[in-house]
């Protein structure tokens, strides 16, 4: 059944005439640019409300044109290229960043079968059999924009910021890729439209819940967004990799950041939330408006993810760099590796026609092993705490500042040779 629908989407898109592909790419581009303008406004409004402020409400109705006004302002600013900068690379870097972010959206299926200018097609630019890999690879190319920007600026802070963000993006890409493996295993395909089609019963957000969580965390790391916005830690690195950029070149980085957020949200929607498919039980709505209603479902899910990004930004403080890397490499990647192995085994079992007893036994065994590991961790932690406590109870005989967050207090004896214990002591 999956392969039928897959062939359907691929066939549909294959029959597109050249002009329709052009129109669609233009539509995707316009959609993204308009969405970025609205996203900037929306983010600032929502974050403002979370901080009991109003946010931008001056330009246009409800301040809706704020993004546009910001863009115009940036375009009118002086374009500075530092003397120490490598001019060619300095100009090239924002172009790389901005073009790659748009490219990944080409394989995102935004509607089911619809008619566009009298042609039966789907609102998806192209359907690759390795669509998700394509997105991952384009995201990797996008890192070049960041690295080259930092390197070519000829300045220390941008270089440090670029190193940080590239290290961050690369590290979290590993966890992200691993979390996607489970989806590939279950859907049996890497094509985005196939993956959406295979979620007709259950969304992978439910079936592969750990993968969903890992992807959600790593997509925030991947896009350099709060609380993982270490590359732009104002207090440490000024503006990060784009410190030396101004005017339209800065605007391109800004655009790229927001398009990337939209892309990872769209990918999450596609892979885990059933893409353009309606909520379970509302399948009949997929036929409304000649199939275009599916776009509304896609859009709603996209916005929900974007809201989640804003919510994170409004709630969580920025992580310290070493904690962030530790979390990525020591927790996210091992957990997703383990999860991938479990999913692969379960999948192989069900494909080989293993009996229910075997599957249940395997799952139970896994749960038992996990509990055992957790309890070992707990006891180790407790031992460490006991050791720490005994270390602290050795009371020093000189004035020391009180340990922060320590339960025990130290007091300095009034006289050093205060030999006699007071009466009633002990």
């Amino acid at each position: 059944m999956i392969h039928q629908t897959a062939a359907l989407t691929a066939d549909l898109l294959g029959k597109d005439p050249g002009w329709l592909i052009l129109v669609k790419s233009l539509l995707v581009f316009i959609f993204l640019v308009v969405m970025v303008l609205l996203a900037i406004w929306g983010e600032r409004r929502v974050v403002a409300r979370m901080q009991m402020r109003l946010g931008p409400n001056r330009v246009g109705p409800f301040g809706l044109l704020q993004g546009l006004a910001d863009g115009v302002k940036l375009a009118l600013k002086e374009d500075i290229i530092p003397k120490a900068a490598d001019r060619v690379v300095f100009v090239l870097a924002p172009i790389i960043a901005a073009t790659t972010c748009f490219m990944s959206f080409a394989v995102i299926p935004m509607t089911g079968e619809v008619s566009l200018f009298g042609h039966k097609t789907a609102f998806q630019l192209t359907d690759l059999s390795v669509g998700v890999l394509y997105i991952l690879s384009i995201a990797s190319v996008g890192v070049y924009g960041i690295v080259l920007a930092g390197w070519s600026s000829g300045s220390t802070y941008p270089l440090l910021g670029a190193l940080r963000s590239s290290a961050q993006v690369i590290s979290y890409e590993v966890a992200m890729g691993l979390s996607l493996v489970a989806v590939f295993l279950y859907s049996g395909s890497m094509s985005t439209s196939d993956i959406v089609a295979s979620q007709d019963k259950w969304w992978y957000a439910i079936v592969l819940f750990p993968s969903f969580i890992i992807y959600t965390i790593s997509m925030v790391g991947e896009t350099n967004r709060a609380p993982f916005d270490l590359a732009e830690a104002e207090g440490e690195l000024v503006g990060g990799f784009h410190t030396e950029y101004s005017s339209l070149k800065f605007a391109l980085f800004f655009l790229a950041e927001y398009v990337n957020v939209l892309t990872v949200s769209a990918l999450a929607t596609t892979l885990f939330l059933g893409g353009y498919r309606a909520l379970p039980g509302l399948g009949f709505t997929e036929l409304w408006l000649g199939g275009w209603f599916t776009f509304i479902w896609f859009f709603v899910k996209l916005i929900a993810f974007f809201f989640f990004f804003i919510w994170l930004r409004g709630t969580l403080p920025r992580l310290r760099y070493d904690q962030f890397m530790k979390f990525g490499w020591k927790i996210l990647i091992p957990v997703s590796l383990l999860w991938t192995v479990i999913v692969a085994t379960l999948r192989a079992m069900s494909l080989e026609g293993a009996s229910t007893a075997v599957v249940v036994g395997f799952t139970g065994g896994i749960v038992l092993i996990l509990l055992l590991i957790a309890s070992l961790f707990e006891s180790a932690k407790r031992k460490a705490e006991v050791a720490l406590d005994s270390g602290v109870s050795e009371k020093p005989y000189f004035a020391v500042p009180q340990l922060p967050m320590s339960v025990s207090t130290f007091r300095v004896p009034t006289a050093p040779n205060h030999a006699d214990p007071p009466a009633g002591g002990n």
Partner: protein
Amino acid sequence: MMSEDVVKRPEASLETAGEESELVPNDGVASLAKQSRGFGVTFATMFKKPGTEQYPEEKVPTAPRFHGRHQLNRHPDGLEKCIGCELCAWACPADAIYVEGAENTEEERFSPGERFGRVYQINYLRCIFCGLCIEACPTRALTMTNEYELADDSRRKLIFEKEDLLAPLRVGMVAPPHDMYPGTRERDYYRGKITEADPSQGEIVGTASSEVTP
């Protein structure tokens, strides 16, 4: 091991020595549920009324004792209260006030008593609105208003002269220079015996053809 001159303090003295300090217990890393409570806070805040004031459109009144622009007050008959003593200038930690006093004469009197402030400048680029000048003023000549819209586009405009700072002439006052209220001395002004201007002092504002001048 400890050296011999240091004697170990008995455990019991721990309880008796000094006052017990309140300590926050450290339970280690908070649980995930506890850490996630912040999400609830931000989400709930979205539905609270924002504290934003729509400033240029809606001007919310300041607190009554807000430190705004200064004002040089007048006696009820229109004479200035400032005696040019420069105490405000000396009190000013930001060196924002410049005063030059001068002698009142019988022909040209600006304040009751001997002297008046001939030049009075406050530099609002320096002023920190601390109010020490107000505390220093012996005659209550200098007070602060609630006016806070003091931004301007040049340094020169932000040095306020005496005519910018003087309180407007109110109805019943006479624009100085003019004589003191007939039959009074300087001290009568400070005892509150003068409540309005006398026609002999000059043209009274608010009567006849005169107009209120700022």
